[in-house]
């Protein structure tokens, strides 16, 4: 609490008033935070209410499977887990290639609940991990914004973050993915960094490194932190704002953070070997040089310091040049300049489409469109510039390392979100923080001027009091929640000593400020109207967020629904197909499909797959792509050499499901052709157009993907009308020679084919059908086709 050191009685009474208000405000903000947490949790439950409590999409199934393994076998088995049920015949070292943060978190929660005799299944815990952590994330946002701007801005930012659609899209119940916990870790790391910067204690620096460790465990996006913080440190140094607090915030973080990051198996020595981390080491050296210079400056007289500078600069420059030259030589000696492909595709947006089609093929790696900005951050897009201006205005006052950090954060994240739609997620917290600052500042100004207008007629001391209270209660805008301006002007108990000092510093000039404020105060009517408009804006945002959470982002993508005039249709074909595989095939059978469905097949059907969503081996994926784009016989050979028993294709032509394999087919051709040059993309295109009707090329009409998708399709309606491509298919009546249909789901969305066994060799018949037998006999004769088939 603000200890009254001043002597005037008026201020004394004011402060006793304020202590009461502080206590009340503390309780109020605690309850508001609690409600924000509940809201963040419950807005994400639409998917459970509208559908059911299932894991969504693709990657979450893998995480779910890993968590199941962890819960069953324990942590040591988990680190050593070699998974032989995926990437057949290569297998995958799961323990060393997975970011373990999410699975360890959920596994710990499950273990904790079970030891408390609360018997939840692993799946339930996994489904609700993301909503729980989004509540944590909004609290972390509150803490971060409070450090930057004050309690009111913090509450507003937390409320905004709790329902920002961009974050909801990644953290609805069931979306059990790394980002779910990583965003919390990201914000919390930033909070602790700012906290260390503001207080300068080693305690928070330690906590900061541990939070950074959690972030490294959770998501590959930790490189954003380890590059953003050095950038901020550099910015502070360049703008002449170096302080010993900056040193304490940064130097221990680099040493401890590097060591902790190296502990995570998937990062390992990359923490000191790759260019993503070099920026932090460079700044680490720079900050030591700068700290030393400041120290020398402190103990020497100015004249002597000048002498020292002239002496040191000449020597120092030479040394610096040498060090930098060595560093550049080291970095340049590695082929990719030490950067991983994913980072390079961030720095150079055209990189992925040129060199790595497998990264470019994922829709969430595409650059976003303008509507998606509006969809994902909505009115925040308009509030962000205002927030930046408010923060920048604060930059010119003292104590604003924190606001410069927020401005830097939003500038970089806007760039990254422009490169990759998936990184909109990193932008969302920054947008929420700046918008929170802007909104709360606006509320502050308006409520302040209303208050001023109402009390303007009273005596001078009262004016002073009103001014002090409104200036100390800077930006107390829980008005979004309570909509009672009188209650918003409460002082918060959690004032930092520095802020106290600033308030004391401001006191003598309060009179002058009151004069100034009188000019700044807006007329009563206009401020009331503006307040109403702001509330309206907030309400619009809330309505949009609820709509986005309920309609746009809650579909689990393994269960689809459609509304038509005769009611609601549920398409549960995926689970039907996986259940069929689980119950009707042998445990060790291998199932081939495009890599999108690999995780789901291993998790739901428990069958071995050839490729999955962890796209670590491009050649292997290209082999499957080649098989899908080859004619039937060549495809059979490739699959047979991979020991495949069943082939699974997803087909949406009957019900109009647009993201099926025929629509992804060009990517299969591209990725396959990248490794096996006899697959050429132009062979599948008629005049540059991708079509499957009677105008399609013969290569297209004879490839395996076409045949498996449209086999017997004409029997459904007699014409073979594809409802996704809106056209009649080109080749309607054909037979399969090397595959047989094993299972087709209710809506034909998943079709499973079985490879026919190789034919017995028939003596004396070789002359007549030489080409046929050469392909269908067993391995010694297949050497003729070796070029097309890498798995022999």
């Amino acid at each position, binding site marked *: 609490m603000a200890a009254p050191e001043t002597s005037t009685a008026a201020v004394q009474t004011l402060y006793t008033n304020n202590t009461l208000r502080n206590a009340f405000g503390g309780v109020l903000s605690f309850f508001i935070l609690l409600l924000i947490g509940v809201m963040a949790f419950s807005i994400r439950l639409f998917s459970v209410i509208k559908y059911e409590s299932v894991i969504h999409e693709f990657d979450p199934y893998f995480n779910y499977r890993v968590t199941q393994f962890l819960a069953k076998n324990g942590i040591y088995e988990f680190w050593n887990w070699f998974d032989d049920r995926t990437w057949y015949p290569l297998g995958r070292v799961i323990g060393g290639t997975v970011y373990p943060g999410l699975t360890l978190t959920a596994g710990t929660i499950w273990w904790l609940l079970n030891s408390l005799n609360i018997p939840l299944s692993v799946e339930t815990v996994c489904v609700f991990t993301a909503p729980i952590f989004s509540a944590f994330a909004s609290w972390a946002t509150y803490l971060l914004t409070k450090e930057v701007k004050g309690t009111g801005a913090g509450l507003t930012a937390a409320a905004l973050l709790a329902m920002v659609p961009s974050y909801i899209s990644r953290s609805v119940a069931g979306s059990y993915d790394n980002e779910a916990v990583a965003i919390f870790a990201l914000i919390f790391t930033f909070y602790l960094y700012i906290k260390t910067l503001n207080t300068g204690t*080693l305690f928070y620096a330690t906590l900061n490194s541990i939070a950074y460790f959690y972030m490294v465990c959770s998501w590959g996006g930790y490189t954003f932190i380890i590059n953003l913080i050095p950038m901020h440190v550099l910015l502070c140094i360049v703008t002449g704002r170096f302080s010993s607090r900056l040193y304490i915030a940064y130097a221990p973080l680099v040493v401890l953070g590097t060591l902790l990051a190296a502990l995570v198996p998937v990062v390992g020595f990359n923490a000191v070997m790759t260019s993503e981390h070099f920026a932090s080491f460079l700044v680490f050296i720079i900050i030591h040089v700068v700290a030393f210079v400041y120290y020398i400056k402190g103990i020497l007289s100015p004249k002597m310091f000048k002498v020292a500078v002239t002496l040191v600069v000449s020597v120092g420059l030479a040394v610096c040049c040498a060090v930098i030259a060595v560093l550049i030589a080291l970095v340049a000696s590695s082929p990719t300049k030490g950067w991983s492909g994913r980072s390079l595709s961030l720095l150079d947006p055209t990189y992925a489409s040129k060199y790595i089609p497998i990264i470019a093929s994922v829709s969430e790696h595409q650059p976003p469109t303008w509507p998606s900005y509006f969809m994902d951050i909505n009115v925040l897009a308009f509030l962000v510039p205002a927030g930046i201006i408010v923060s920048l205005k604060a930059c010119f006052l003292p104590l604003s390392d924190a606001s410069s950090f927020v401005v830097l954060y939003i500038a970089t994240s806007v760039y990254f979100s422009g490169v990759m739609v998936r990184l909109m997620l990193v932008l969302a917290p920054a947008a929420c923080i700046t918008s929170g600052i802007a909104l709360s500042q606006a509320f502050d100004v308006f409520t302040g001027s209303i208050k001023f207008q109402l009390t303007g007629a009273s005596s001078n001391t009262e004016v002073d009091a009103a001014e002090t209270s409104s200036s100390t209660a800077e930006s107390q805008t829980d008005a979004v929640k309570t909509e009672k301006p009188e209650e918003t002007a409460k002082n918060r108990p959690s004032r930092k000593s520095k802020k106290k000092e600033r308030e004391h510093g401001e006191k003598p000039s309060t009179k002058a400020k009151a004069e100034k404020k009188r000019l700044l105060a807006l007329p009563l009517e206009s401020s009331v109207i503006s307040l109403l408009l702001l509330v309206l804006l907030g309400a619009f945002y809330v309505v949009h967020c609820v709509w986005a959470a309920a309609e746009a982002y809650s579909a689990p993508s393994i269960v689809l629904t459609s509304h038509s005039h005769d009611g609601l249709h549920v398409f549960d074909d995926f689970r039907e197909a996986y259940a069929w595989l689980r119950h009707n095939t042998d445990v060790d059978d291998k199932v081939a499909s495009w890599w999108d469905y690999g995780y789901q097949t291993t998790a739901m059907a428990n069958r071995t797959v050839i490729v999955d969503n962890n796209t670590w081996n491009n050649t292997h994926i290209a082999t499957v792509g080649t098989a899908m784009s080859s004619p039937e016989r060549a495809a059979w050979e490739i699959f047979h050499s991979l020991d495949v028993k069943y082939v699974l294709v997803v087909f949406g032509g009957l019900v109009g499901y647009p993201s099926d394999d025929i629509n992804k087919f060009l990517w299969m051709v591209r990725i396959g052709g990248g490794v096996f040059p006899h697959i050429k993309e132009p062979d599948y295109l008629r005049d540059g157009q991708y079509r499957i009707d009677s105008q399609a090329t013969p290569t297209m009409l004879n490839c395996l993907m076409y045949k498996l998708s449209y086999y017997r399709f004409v029997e459904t309606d007699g014409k073979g009308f594809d409802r996704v491509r809106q056209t009649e298919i080109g080749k309607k009546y054909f037979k399969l020679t090397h595959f047989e249909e094993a299972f087709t789901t209710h809506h034909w969305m998943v079709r499973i084919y079985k490879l026919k066994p190789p034919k017995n060799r028939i003596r004396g018949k070789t002359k007549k059908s030489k080409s046929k037998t050469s392909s269908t006999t067993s391995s010694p004769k297949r050497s003729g086709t070796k070029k097309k088939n890498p798995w022999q």
Partner: protein
Amino acid sequence: MGRTSSTKEDAGALFHSLRSAYAATPVNLKIIDLYVGFAIFTALIQVVYMAMVGSFPFNSFLSGVLSCVGTAVLAVCLRIQVNKENKEFKDLPPERAFADFVLCNLVLHLVIMNFLG
């Protein structure tokens, strides 16, 4: 000729003033300085050893050097905080600073023991 002699003089004067300025620092800060110097010296020895023998158990090398660097950095942080002349940390008692220092060191060395391999 005159220029070099003036540079020499300047250097001498600089050296003297540096020494006299440093002599004024309290003893406890000098002890911390010694500690920092020792840690950096140990790190340098390890780097030289690595350059001669090779960095084969890379995690051992890394943890050795980083433990020295980390110790030095933490000691510098402690020195900044307990320095009476530093106005930024007037309200931070030295006991609290030392407790933070110990905690941070504990974490650092726990991690290093884990990483040593």
